[in-house]
């Protein structure tokens, strides 16, 4: 760090704008410029080829203001003396990581680096981060989107030979001093559920810096609709094209539209469909309405935007998406997919219109925005006005936070755990009159732990905080938790039974303090299916033994009556907490006589939909006016069967369940009739929220109300005749059932609250169910 510098930040990267393409390179470029502008020194460790490096040094660097404090190195240059690198390495990320480690160790000896920033994908910081913390400066991992996340979100096969890469990504995220997230929604929705090791106490929100590429004079008479991004399914081009074709079915929109303009280069990797397959989504007779420009640089892009009325971003996964913000701040109105990154980046209605990810909804929004000139102008104006707000330096705050954290960390890992836990518990105790229970559970969005999280008298802690993470001594973890509970005056501890070592942990608690009671938080349902069932049951074995050994001090709680039933019969005090049900969505304003049926595949031991398709066919032959049948797109046998048996006049296939609940008939019924112990399958919740009534199997929540039996709850679940009967009767009394459901849902809410009260009191098990 030079005398005049406010600090030194090192970026290690394979991307840098404009030398290489990619959003990460743009982010680092903008951040570097911002830091230099504000008096920081920046070290750029570039991992690229010699020609790219020459371009960077000789051309691109010269365009950066205050570049005298920008020090650029190339990884290969620093690794000339690296011996014994495992070349060729089976996984290129491993050799990249080894070389980066070597280069970083050299650079950190040469410069007083305050912070090293790496990106999250490919795990290239794995080897460097594996070194002792005292031997290196703080390391931040910035969330862009890991390869694992992208491949999961795009439903690409998670191949065994990628596991090493995923593991490296996960390891560096776990080892980093701090995680920089572009926004809170992205962290909460995309990262936290998949990476429980990234606890909130290590996450800083650090919105990317951005500069407009220029601004246009918005033309309200412009009539082109733009797609801007790589030609891939990851960027949602398939959705865009499908939506475009759908929108063109509307003659008003077709007349209004000049053309769809698709701007971007071909993408061969992060896409489920090739460019030619994507182009094939456009019917021949519509081909002249779509124009592909190929890749355009910013200079060439701006003239194109002059004739754009609005742009659509149907991207499936993003951390930020510079492309969207570039057009937004240029003054182009946007329609964006409702993903976390866009929720962080845009205010709905002001910054952009949101659609729900389906082509249907995007088409509707296209038509809406095409009709509404005033709205387009308002969106354009908002984007331009907002442009300056992106240029904000968060690094002084990040560095201060890291210095404080390092000081705390220096006291040792266990002390840190103890301190933070005690502090958390103390805060909770101050915030209430005392907490009744400390619960240890991984990040959850459902189940009892999620319900407890909402209670002021309960504190939910991550397992790492109490020594249930690898690398922490369990005994010391228990000591920390004991102290925390002592601070809070709490003698009850709930533990998610699915956590590795949870039963052993509970046993140590019970032995260490005779006054402590332990509540095992069981799964939400009994183990399903063929695979994994044994393992899931096995995990219950130690808890059943604990219940026998400590009959008065071990309790079990679950949303599954089947599981609590097992434990109660084995002598444990149990608590069954009913799951919360969603409100029934507004019924679609459609044809009163028509009926849409949506068949949903099973997720447990049984996946076949044959019994339901035969039921639909039977109901139709019995006179039920079924207008349309929706089937899972991948279930080709189901489609063949539905056609053979003439189950409906129109048979549709859905890839995304949401598509099946778009528009259609006023009465829509979802069939998901399976024997699984699942009070409300996820898909049924989607159906209810969309205003459709789900017909489920014998273990569903509806079994508890006599009025729903044989209608929304089919006991003889595989009997097509019984399902057909239930389908017919449900549609006949659709309105009454919708009303009954609303009351049922409110009753369940009350029961859930009472059950949680009992659980926290630890006194008695509420009775649920009954008519």
């Amino acid at each position, binding site marked *: 760090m030079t005398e005049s510098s406010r600090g030194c930040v090192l970026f290690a990267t394979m991307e840098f704008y404009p030398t290489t393409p990619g959003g990460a390179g743009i982010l680092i470029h903008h951040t570097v410029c911002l830091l230099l502008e504000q008096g920081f020194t920046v070290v750029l460790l570039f991992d690229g080829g010699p020609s790219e490096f020459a371009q960077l040094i000789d051309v691109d660097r010269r365009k950066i203001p205050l570049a005298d404090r920008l020090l650029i190195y190339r990884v290969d240059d620093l690794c000339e003396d690296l011996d014994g690198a495992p070349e060729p390495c089976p996984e290129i990320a491993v050799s990249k990581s080894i070389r980066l480690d070597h280069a970083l160790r050299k650079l950190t000896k040469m410069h007083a680096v305050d912070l090293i920033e790496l990106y999250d994908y490919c795990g290239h910081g794995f080897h460097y981060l594996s070194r002792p913390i005292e031997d290196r400066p703080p390391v931040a991992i910035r969330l862009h989107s890991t390869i694992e996340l992208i491949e999961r979100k795009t439903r690409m096969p998670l191949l065994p030979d990628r596991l090493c890469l995923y593991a490296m990504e996960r390891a560096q995220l776990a080892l980093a001093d701090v995680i920089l997230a572009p926004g809170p929604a992205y962290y909460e929705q995309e990262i936290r559920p998949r990476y429980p090791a990234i606890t909130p106490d290590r996450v800083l929100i650090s919105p990317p810096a951005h500069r407009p590429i220029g601004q246009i004079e918005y033309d309200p008479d412009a009539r082109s609709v733009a797609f801007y991004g790589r030609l891939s399914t990851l960027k949602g081009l398939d959705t865009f094209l499908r939506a475009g074709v759908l929108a063109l079915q509307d003659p008003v929109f077709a007349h209004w539209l000049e053309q769809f303009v698709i701007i971007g280069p071909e993408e061969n990797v992060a896409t489920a469909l090739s460019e030619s397959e994507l182009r094939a989504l456009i019917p021949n007779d519509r081909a002249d309405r779509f124009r592909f420009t190929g890749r355009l640089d910013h200079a060439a892009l701006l003239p194109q935007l002059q004739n754009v009325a609005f742009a659509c971003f149907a991207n499936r996964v993003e951390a930020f998406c510079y492309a969207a913000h570039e057009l937004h701040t240029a003054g182009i109105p946007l329609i964006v997919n409702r993903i976390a990154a866009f929720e962080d980046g845009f205010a709905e209605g002001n910054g952009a219109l949101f659609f729900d990810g389906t082509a249907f909804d995007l088409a509707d929004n296209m038509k809406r925005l095409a009709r509404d000139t005033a709205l387009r102008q308002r969106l354009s104006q908002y984007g331009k006005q907002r442009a300056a707000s992106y240029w904000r330096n968060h690094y002084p705050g990040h560095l201060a936070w890291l210095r404080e954290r390092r000081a705390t960390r220096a006291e040792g890992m266990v002390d840190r755990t103890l301190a933070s836990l005690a502090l958390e518990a103390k805060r909770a105790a101050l915030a209430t009159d005392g907490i009744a229970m400390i619960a240890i559970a991984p990040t959850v969005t459902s189940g009892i732990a999620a319900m407890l999280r909402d209670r002021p008298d309960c504190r939910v802690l991550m397992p790492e905080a109490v020594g249930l993470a690898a690398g922490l001594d369990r005994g010391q973890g228990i000591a920390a938790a004991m102290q925390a509970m002592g601070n809070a005056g709490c003698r009850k501890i709930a533990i998610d039974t699915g956590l590795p070592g949870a039963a052993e942990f509970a046993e140590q608690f019970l032995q260490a303090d005779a006054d402590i009671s332990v509540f095992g938080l069981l799964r939400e349902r009994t183990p399903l299916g*063929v695979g994994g069932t044994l393992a899931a*049951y096995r995990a219950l074995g130690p808890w059943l033994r604990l219940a026998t050994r400590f009959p008065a001090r071990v309790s079990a709680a679950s949303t599954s009556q089947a599981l609590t*039933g097992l434990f109660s019969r084995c002598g444990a005090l149990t608590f069954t907490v009913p799951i919360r049900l969603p409100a029934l969505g507004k019924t679609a304003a459609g044809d009163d006589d028509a009926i849409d049926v949506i068949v949903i595949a099973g997720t447990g*031991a049984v996946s076949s939909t044959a019994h339901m398709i035969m039921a639909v*066919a039977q109901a139709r032959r019995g006179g039920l006016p079924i207008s349309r049948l929706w089937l899972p797109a991948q279930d080709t046998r189901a489609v063949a069967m539905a056609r053979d048996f003439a189950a409906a006049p129109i048979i549709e296939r859905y890839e995304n369940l949401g598509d099946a609940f778009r528009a259609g008939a006023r009465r829509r019924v979802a069939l998901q009739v399976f024997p699984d112990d699942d009070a409300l399958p996820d898909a049924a919740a989607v159906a209810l929220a969309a205003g459709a009534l789900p017909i489920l199997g014998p273990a569903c929540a509806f079994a508890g109300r006599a009025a729903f039996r044989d209608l929304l709850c089919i006991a*003889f679940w595989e009997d097509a005749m019984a399902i057909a009967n239930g389908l017919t009767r449900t549609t006949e009394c659709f309105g009454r059932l919708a009303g009954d459901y609303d009351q049922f849902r409110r009753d369940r809410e009350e029961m859930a609250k009472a059950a949680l009260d009992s659980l926290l009191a630890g006194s008695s098990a509420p009775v649920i169910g009954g008519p």
Partner: protein
Amino acid sequence: MIRLDRSAVGEAVRLFEGHAISAAEADELCARHPSREDFLVELWLRRGALARCPELAAVVERAGKNRSLASGGAEQTFYESVFASLDRHEPTALYVPRWHGVATATRCLFRQAVPIPPSPDRRPDDIGDAGIAAYTEILLTSGVRHFIISGGDAFHLALIRSVLQRDAGIRFDLVWHANYLQLGEEAPWRLFRQWLQAAERGLITRVGVVKAGLDEFLHHLKIDAVALPNFIPVDPERYNRGKVADVVGIWLSGSSSYRKLPHAMIAAVKAMRTFCLKGSGLGAEGLALVTALDVPFLQVFEDVIPHERLLRAIPNTAISLYVTISECSPMLPIESFSLGVPCLIGPSSDLFRDHQLLREMLVVDQPYNPGMIADMAVAAVARRGDVLAAYSRYNKEVEVQARDALVRFLA
């Protein structure tokens, strides 16, 4: 009263159960059945057709002395011998002995049942054109004019076509043993479509189904169909006194990887606390679960045990658990009841559905719910007398319905 010799007993078991038994086991059977009637009753419980067709039993005894069955010409000799004892005016069922469940059900349903191919070690898919030609000849020379195909393998269709080409006046019917759910599997769905086409083209006259309601579905497709429930007559006088009050039996056939899972049933035994487990066909996972949950057990087998051994094991239990998730018309529960042992089932067949007491006490609505299974099992054991009495009455009604259905099917 004729004392059976052990070689005849052993061969009868081999022919109709598909496995050889040792001389010691044959001796044991002989010792336990001093009379021919008792022996036939046991065989009837296992296979049914023997008891209702004493002539066939005699053939079996004779065939037991013919050791050359396995060789080439022996097959024809065997069929000649079998058909010689049959009434050619009587409808005759053809079944594949390799499919144990279907074979058992077929022999219970029909007075005359003939295995094609003759033994369980022969795969139906291996029957080529020469085999079809040979079986065509056997069927034509038998003089039987009405055959019932039980099961419906692909070779059966070729056999029907071959026979009808030679004699268009012979009638074929089909008994279809799969349920709705199984049609979601590739092979049954493909076969089912072929049989629907066969019905449309008049190759078969009538379809019998063992899944209740499927007949109604087929009526809508304009196919003549009759539901044929399985049943076994019971004699309440033969029930034992219920000496065993704390042993649970779980007897699985291992015929499905997803429709008959043992996990919840095994966990239920744990929840029954004072009960012990006996079981077979539990698979490696089942045995591992017994260990993981510390389920008290007397004897558990990973594999399926021979039927004869199963029938000896069931009476030494207080209750059978057959809480499976998908069935047609299951045999195990009615075999258990015929031996005086109540049996819980899942919500997956027509059994007990229209009988209030049995429905409430024996049909577990939630097949994945160990607590519910445990509660109902304890209650059924406590009320064993009531349950058996109710079952006895129920079974008489089912018998009437089944006989009536069979008459309609064969008409």
